[in-house]
């Protein structure tokens, strides 16, 4: 039977009335479980961050599920190892979205992984939270509809310790750098140097040392630094390499000759114990610190720290806080999207639309995601000190930098923004809080 003219006219009219509204607010059935993919390092040197990140995810998801899940839906995590490389990661990302039907991806620790995953998130139209990677390039080079970062980026993580150094030791004349020879080590030095040239143009760089990624011995570099006697030594290294550098430097009394600035050393403090002497500058890739001088909700911070310690027998380090932030943002975004959808489960577009301007709680602060997808996270920097209470260095003279002060504005390239800084910014640095 053919289609008559009457059928066609009726069909067109009916479809024209209903189809657009169907696309706009297609009802999505509330799932039995909320499947989320989490990419993290479970092998290789970066598993010192990846495994605590996974542990925190398991602990927090258990807590969320015990409380009824998100909108009454329990979370089911799927973990993917970033260790085998980007090709493997992209394959797993695609498999999780297309085969396992995960609704949200949390990716990744490595900046290289994030740079690769973000275009794929757009292609697959799957909300992706960049939960730990630092590269500032992602939202400065392109706008994304489905990708959001639930923490800061490399710019505030480098600028905050530079400002702290300029406040604490404004008269330093010489500086040396020892960073790992890979993207983060090189990029963080570029950011530091851009800021330093603007704020302290008379500082002289006496050595730029980039030992290979994965190096296990820094004796030669320590000798070189001992001979040079720079006023300041910067190292954005992390993991076993930072531990080894700190121990070898301590054994050979390099800490007595130079002031160290270590923006990621919070994650090494418990492991290196008393090897790290007092008086050196430590950062934590955010405002993560179990002795935070002014947390937004002290009970919340204590609960997180105590639960983590009880379950894993160590203090939580920064990736565990970043995981908290990602899951907290996810809960807040679902709540916002459902509220805007009459209490119904949101579709992908509705969920993605909830993130720009989203406010959510971290263990220490109230955070925001900007309109470009970048999270605004405070930065806590302090000076190492020793007490009888703990067998490792804690922090004194802590400054919590507001994110607006140290993050490049929307649409600005970080390096150019840092080069254009004036010394007025130092007047806006808050006073030490603890």
């Amino acid at each position: 039977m053919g289609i008559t003219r009457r059928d066609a006219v009726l069909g067109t009219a009916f479809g024209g009335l209903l189809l657009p509204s169907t696309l706009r607010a297609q009802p999505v059935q509330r799932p039995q479980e909320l499947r989320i993919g989490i990419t993290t390092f479970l092998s290789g040197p970066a598993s010192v961050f990846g495994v605590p990140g996974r542990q925190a995810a398991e602990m927090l998801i258990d807590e969320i599920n015990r409380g009824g899940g998100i909108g009454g839906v329990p979370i089911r995590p799927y973990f993917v190892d970033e260790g085998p490389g980007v090709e493997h990661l992209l394959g797993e990302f695609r498999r999780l979205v297309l085969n396992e039907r995960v609704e949200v991806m949390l990716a990744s620790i490595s900046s290289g992984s994030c740079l690769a995953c973000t275009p794929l998130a757009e292609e697959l139209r799957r909300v992706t939270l960049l939960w730990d990677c630092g590269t500032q390039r992602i939202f400065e080079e392109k706008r994304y509809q489905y990708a959001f970062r639930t923490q800061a980026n490399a710019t505030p993580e480098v600028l905050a310790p530079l400002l702290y150094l300029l406040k604490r030791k404004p008269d330093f004349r010489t500086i040396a750098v020892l960073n790992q020879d890979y993207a983060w080590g090189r990029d963080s030095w570029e950011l530091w140097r851009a800021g330093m040239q603007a704020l302290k143009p008379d500082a002289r760089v006496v050595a730029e040392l980039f030992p290979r990624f994965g190096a296990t011995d820094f004796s030669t570099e320590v000798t070189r630094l001992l001979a040079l006697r720079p006023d300041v030594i910067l190292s954005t290294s992390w993991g076993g390499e930072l531990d080894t550098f700190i121990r070898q430097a301590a054994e050979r009394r390099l800490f007595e000759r130079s002031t160290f600035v270590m923006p990621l050393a919070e994650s090494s403090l418990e492991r290196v114990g008393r090897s790290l002497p007092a008086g050196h500058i430590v950062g934590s890739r955010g405002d993560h610190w179990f002795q935070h001088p002014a947390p937004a909700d002290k009970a919340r911070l204590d609960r997180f720290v105590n639960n983590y310690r009880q379950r894993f027998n160590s203090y939580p380090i920064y990736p565990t806080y970043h995981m908290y932030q990602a899951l907290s943002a996810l809960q807040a975004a679902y709540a916002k999207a459902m509220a805007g959808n009459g209490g119904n489960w949101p579709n992908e577009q509705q969920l993605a639309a909830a993130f720009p301007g989203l406010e959510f709680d971290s263990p220490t602060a109230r955070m925001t995601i900007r309109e470009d997808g970048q999270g605004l996270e405070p930065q806590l920097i302090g000076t190492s000190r020793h007490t009888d209470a703990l067998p490792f260095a804690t922090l004194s003279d802590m400054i919590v930098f507001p994110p607006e002060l140290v993050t490049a504005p929307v649409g600005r390239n970080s390096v150019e923004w840092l080069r254009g800084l004036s010394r007025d910014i130092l007047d806006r640095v808050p006073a030490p809080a603890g």
Partner: protein
Amino acid sequence: MGAWFADNGLLLGLALLDGLASAALIFLVAVGLNLVFGVLRVLNIAHGSLFAIGAYTAAGLGAALGSGALPAWAALGVLILAAALVGAVLGPLIERLLLRRIYAEENVLQLLVTFALFMMLEDVQKLVWGVQPVHHDAAMRLFGTFDVPFGSDFIPFTAYQLFVLPGIAVLVLVGLVWFLRSTLSGRMIVAVTTDREAATAIGINADRVYLLTFTAGAVLAALGGALASPTAAIVPGVGASTIVLSFAVVATAGLGRIEGAALTALMIGLGRSVAVYFFPEAEVLIPYLIMVAVLLVKPQGLFGTLETRRI
């Protein structure tokens, strides 16, 4: 040139001291790999795992025995004991259960099997020791530091890196050369290396020689890891970086050549430390630049000999 030395002579001296300690560790790991390849003709990728397990075991044993309270020689003894344990247990196990079955197979298959073993042992390390960096520096701390004059200044070095590591490397080198040239077991190893068929025909038990050699190689790899453990944090992946450098040493030295491994380790150790002082960007490239330069001039390696191929 003279002016350059006048300006940089002192720095060069420091670089040479640094290079010695670095060369000692490189030698200890690479010589085991070289010995195993020379006799068994198997390129053992799992050699890096034996290094890592030696390091983890030494740190674990040191912490468990509380060697911080022991005198220096005891802390050092714990490291050597750990290496001996790892080599003596894992060496025969791997040789008997795995390698013995693939001696007659293609090189590619041998590589795949030892690579698979490497991957499995990587996971075993994570299961046993976790992923957080492990460290125990009692041996290094107990030997203290030694101040080297530097113009009007001085540079503190650890006595462990300045004297103990190079000292042990020299002992191992001399001991190995003496063992291979002056003992019956050593001569049997040399005989099997030279011509397995002829050695078997005159009554040498080649299987036993293989077992002995592989176990010695495993002990040396573990010793390298154990001696590195007081100075470095041990992390997942340390075995992989070790094996890559060891291959460069073995290829440069000439496969199966012990003196070659020592000389190459010295060249790489010194080359890398000099690079850190004067051309830091080239430090990562030095081992491979040395390898390429040597192989261009002597394709069989520094001490390697041309082999006739039976058809």
